[in-house]
């Protein structure tokens, strides 16, 4: 006689999304940088900000910041980012 088990896992199938089309060039683009508030993150992003402008021709770098790295971004931060309509977002994850 076979044994029948109750599935103990999350059985939902996660929604799959295709990746957004890649930018062909950063030149002339508007790029958002999301700082998650980890120590040292702003130093790294300041440097990235300069490099994007100076070496890649990015015309506008928008800066956004989560109030804490410990929690998901609040809706207000995401709404501000959507409103600004950047063509690319770089999220500086921790560590």
């Amino acid at each position, binding site marked *: 006689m*076979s044994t029948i*088990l109750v599935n103990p896992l999350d*059985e939902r199938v996660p929604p799959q999304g295709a990746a957004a089309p890649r930018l062909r060039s950063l030149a002339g683009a508007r790029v958002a940088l999301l700082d998650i508030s980890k120590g040292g993150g702003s130093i790294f992003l300041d440097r990235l900000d300069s490099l994007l402008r100076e070496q890649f021709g990015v015309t506008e770098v928008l800066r956004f910041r989560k109030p804490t790295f410990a929690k998901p971004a609040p809706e207000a931060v995401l709404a501000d980012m959507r409103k600004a309509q950047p063509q690319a977002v770089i999220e500086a994850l921790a560590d």
Partner: protein
Amino acid sequence: MLAEGQLAPEIDGVPPSGPALLAFFKTDCPACHLSLRYLDDLSRQFTNDATVVGVSQDAPQPTSELADSLGLALPLRFDSDLNASAEYGLEAVPALFLVDRLGRVAGSSQGFDKADLNRLSAALAGLSGSPVPNPARSGDGNPDFQPGCVSRHLEPESDDESAAPVDMYARRARRASRVNVPADTEPEEFCYEQGFADPLPVIPPTVGRVDRMIAASGLDAEDVVAHVPPNFAPASVEKIAANAVMAGCLPSHMRVLVPAVRALCDERLDIHGVQGTTHFAAPLAIVNGPVRLQLGFACGSNVFSNAARANSTIGRAIHLILRNLGGAAPGRIDMSTMGNPGRFSYVIGENEEASPWEPLATDFGIPAGRNAVTFYCAEPPCAVSEHKARTAEVLLRAICPVLANLWSHRVCKRSEALVVIGPEHAATLDRSGFSKRDVVEFLYRNTGIPVREYDGDGGEGTHEASSYDECLIRGVRCYRKFRKPESIRVMVAGGPAGKFSAVIGSWATGPRGSQMVCHGFD
């Protein structure tokens, strides 16, 4: 994308008639809206047989609504079944295809790009003998380039029920599926192979075992107790029961496990962050109330180790639930650098019988004598040995330096602490007349880091020193370690012999991190 020279496939059963510029779009794509405005102007400029045709990936009604709102006059066709989108091989919309008189692809572009638009317009004019238009000028108020959106045919199936957005407030869940173990496979090995478990063997969650667990909870199998971060899978009573069986719980343990899962997912605890941290933290559960003795929780000797089935198995069930429903498998979501042995199981009972004070849960407004489970996102315990002290002051002075080293020696005002006082130490403190509040105040006032240690070497905690609170501790200028007395919690646990206590550090704290939570239950 189809290459130049390839035959342009049919759209809705009809081959495209060249020369034409086909523009695939979807109605909810901002770059498509932008592109369609230019294409519509372009279509009005061609008066001979060249055409500009919009190909909608959506149904006629939303397409017609969009056309009306944009005032479009260009001819429209429909690729509602998305077959043409797949055959043309587009990845993003808007996607433009120039088709020549022989019905072959003569050029293409994806996304909104003024240069491409002008290039393809000029090529269309060349194919039809029309004057060369220049529909898109730089500096006309619109961007020169805007990436498009993913083509509709590459989106996830929207009619798949399982792909629906997460409902954070669902009160009922589907029943769990049943899994047949192949006849030639040991059920215990099968569970391991299926990724049901941590690396230790489990009790296979057979239907009968899970049903007995559900029945003991007094709840319906489909009732949802919480949604477990970060994946927010619904922790239905049935899923909790299946994990409880695997962990080795008894049906009676559901009485604690169900409220524990609810407390674990209390937003104030922020288990979401702890699940993915690189830090040591693991949720520690502390049980108060009569249920400790009724279910045989270890509160005395070996309270942190493998002394009692209730602690060990309920703690393991909690961590299996975090892994199996929350998604925090080590190396994927759970990225702790060093880990924590408490990630197997981390549950203690307070030794209320050996305590001179009110139970921990009373700090959170739960009356003494009521059952409660408190969660604290905790580092492993640090040992304190003090076998000579005869007074509270001498004893507590042994605890202060251990507190001072939490998180990182020179970091102040960041971490919290749980001080687990052993019964012999509790007796010493009680003999000195110290209440729990007196203990907390003493530890707060006498734990600090000497200012001389902030000598400009740039180490962790030194950059924020200007925000620290200076004080004098035994004549030495110090920065106070803790933000406030309430940053230190005190409870009693452990065996009757041995003058030991334990200090347990926290994860990130406060409203921007994890706050201790305490839930009462019957």
